[in-house]
């Protein structure tokens, strides 16, 4: 809470990260999958003397060059830009802990892009052997970048022994590291297959290459469907208990049915995963001739949905932490809760001193990392029908430690009694402004 805040209404600052990150995840997994798709397919084509396939790959490489080196790189930097504005405390911790990993990542990414550039421009200029070798370098570095980033991503959900030892490798090879890495590798292979299918539909309808490519690309999804179920079970075994509880017990059950939004999204992910398998089977694999580009786009959208929804779920099960067991999602350190809980908020938040309205400062620094007033996770909806008094009573509950029923999904609320009243007054004013513009009923 020692940084300024960034106000994004309607979608909330979390979705700014979310939108950039989901696109980046989609692209980066494509890049990892393509890293293998290109040299493996080249190897096959050279072995069988398939010049039509080689021509296709040549053309296809250009797209991946742009995708990885431009779209992948800019969205990657975009995530950094966004998280440092939205979650400065957590970002600082990640930098302090993993600066060595990012050093490695930059080197690996540089080699990945350089080898892809050589791979693309070398189609006509290099000997087949050298070109193939460069392809393998591209495949290896693309996969290595996943190997590195996966350590940092999984650390935030399960920091493992790092919590005690503060050891780099303890945090890096944390409990969810391996299942997550294998799962992501399968996803990458599947996305490469989906992309091959899409590219195939652009070819002449009756061409031999089109039919071959659609069937060949479909097979790239087989490993996922054979093993992903087991990996998922493995992953769920090592996910922390409170996260699993959020999945099974539900977060917001009242009024919207028996299951939480997280569980409902998980159901949809399952449905879409099965759908993709059936679509690929009945579409490009069994009926390649009549498989049109519009259907391939539908398939890609389904893939995008599964990727996005899975990443979203992974973020939600991390609640209420940014780094589980270490830092809450609003930047509050777990170890500070005891000594800071009931002290005046202004003592703990330097930037709050600039804001004359302590209620607004409380909202911006403690609520806004997850909630907006009128948009995503709207407080106007959550607190509908409550006056300042009633909101205050609710805020008091958020300070009650083990008696706080929201402790598994929301951080404890810092502040003295007067701060809570100020926040209640601010929120009641914002969610239902009185017609005369007068102050709300509870004064700090």
């Amino acid at each position, binding site marked *: 809470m020692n940084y300024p805040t960034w106000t994004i209404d309607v979608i909330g600052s979390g979705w700014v990260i979310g939108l950039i990150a989901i696109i980046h995840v989609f692209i980066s997994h494509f890049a990892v999958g393509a890293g293998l798709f290109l040299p493996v397919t080249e190897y096959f084509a050279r072995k069988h003397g398939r010049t039509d396939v080689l021509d296709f790959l040549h053309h296809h490489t250009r797209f991946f060059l742009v995708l990885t080196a431009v779209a992948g790189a800019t969205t990657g930097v975009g995530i950094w830009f966004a998280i440092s504005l939205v979650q400065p405390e957590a970002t600082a911790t990640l930098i302090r802990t993993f600066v060595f990993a990012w050093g490695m990542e930059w080197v690996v990414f540089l080699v990945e892009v350089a080898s892809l550039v050589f791979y693309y421009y070398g189609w006509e200029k290099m000997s087949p052997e050298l070109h193939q070798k460069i392809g393998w370098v591209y495949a290896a570095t693309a996969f290595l970048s996943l190997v590195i980033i996966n350590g940092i991503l999984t650390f935030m959900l399960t920091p493992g022994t790092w919590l005690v030892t503060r050891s780099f490798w303890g945090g890096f090879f944390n409990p969810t590291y391996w299942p997550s890495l294998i799962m992501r590798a399968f996803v990458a292979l599947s996305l490469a297959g989906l992309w091959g299918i899409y590219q195939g539909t652009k070819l002449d309808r009756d061409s031999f290459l089109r039919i071959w490519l659609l069937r060949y690309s479909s097979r790239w999804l087989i490993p996922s469907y054979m093993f992903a179920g087991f990996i998922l079970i493995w992953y769920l075994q090592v996910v922390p208990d409170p996260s699993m509880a959020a999945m099974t017990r539900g977060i917001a059950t009242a*009024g*919207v*049915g*028996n*299951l939480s*939004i997280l569980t*409902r*999204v998980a*159901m*949809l992910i399952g*449905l*879409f995963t099965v*759908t993709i398998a*059936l*679509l690929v089977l*009945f*579409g490009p694999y*069994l*009926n390649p*001739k*009549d498989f049109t580009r*519009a*259907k391939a786009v*539908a398939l890609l959208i*389904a893939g995008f949905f599964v990727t996005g929804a899975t990443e979203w779920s992974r973020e939600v099960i991390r609640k209420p932490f940014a780094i589980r067991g270490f830092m809450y999602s609003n930047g509050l350190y777990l170890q500070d809760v005891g000594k800071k809980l009931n002290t005046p908020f202004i003592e703990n938040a330097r930037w709050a001193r600039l804001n004359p309205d302590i209620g607004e400062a409380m909202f911006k620094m403690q609520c806004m990392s997850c909630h907006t007033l009128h948009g995503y996770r709207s407080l106007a909806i959550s607190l509908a029908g409550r006056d300042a008094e009633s909101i205050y009573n609710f805020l008091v509950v958020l300070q009650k430690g083990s008696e706080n029923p929201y402790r598994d999904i929301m951080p404890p609320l810092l502040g003295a009694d007067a701060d809570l009243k100020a926040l209640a007054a601010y929120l009641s004013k914002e969610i239902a402004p009185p017609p005369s513009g007068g102050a709300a009923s509870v004064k700090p």
Partner: protein
Amino acid sequence: MGTLLSKLEERLPLAPLKEAALHKQVPIHKHAFWYYMGGISLFFFLVQMVTGVLLLFHYQPGAETAHASALRIMTKVDFGWLIRSIHSWSANLMVGAIFVHMFSVFFMKAYQKPRDLTWYTGLALLGMTFLFGFTGYLLPWDDIAFFATKVGVDVAAGTPVIGKEIANILRGGTDITGLTIQRFFALHAVVLPGIFIAILSLHLLLVQIHGNKIPEGVERANAYRTIPFFPNFLYADLYVWLLAFNVLSILAAIYPWPLGPEADILKPAPQGIHPEWYFMAQFQLLKMMPEPVAMTLFGAAGALWAIVPLWNPATATGRRGKLATYAGIAAAIGLIGLTILAYGKL
């Protein structure tokens, strides 16, 4: 197994059907996408049947029990909320798909002989779908259902000459009461499905007999090819059904259909009460002019629309063919425009 099949074949000769399916060809051209709309409408109807039967196991009609049982379905019955949500969303998507199907048939001039009977049966199915929607909407007996039905019955009451009688028959009296729920339930779960399935069977049979209509321009330019119905078109159809099911699931799971507080007939109507979206154009027309005039106008336009095979019987390109196309565009703009206007004025 083989002998069992041949014994079955002796009693139920399916070989000619199989033969027909293997020989049936479906035309593929730049407008062929619209052929899927009928299939999608059928798919949503099948979803309605399955989820409707599941809801029947728990729903109890009646003034005292309707809302309580709906509430139990939403909160106590495992996945009850999901089944009800799918049922409600699927109903709306079905109406939407039928609308698109009807307009695509209209613009392809697929109502012309020999497909005119298919057109009439299709219109009957559309009318019955509206009745399904109207009768189903009341059943949860929450406040919005009650007042929206009241508005709907008032619209029907505005029909010249027979309006009042229709309204009284629908309500089972002069007011909407528990008896109305009973009536709507009987219509929704017994009478309408029986008639609907019979007409639907005839509709599908006619589609099979006459095949898909190729738009005249496409046929003249010979800009189409054909693919076998089995398995190629069937795969493609299943593909689209699966996508439709996914869209339905997203809507049902992310935006579960709400259930309001129990209807209180003594309470004043909440502000901005309005019928379902597919009745909004008519609702708006009623607000814009005296009731009998609006109902007559709407009825006359509907009747002209229905008998299009009579006034545009032959070719797509003649003077009347063009007129039909313009009429279709005018109808689409009119319906969409009135609906937007109606929502804007809520």
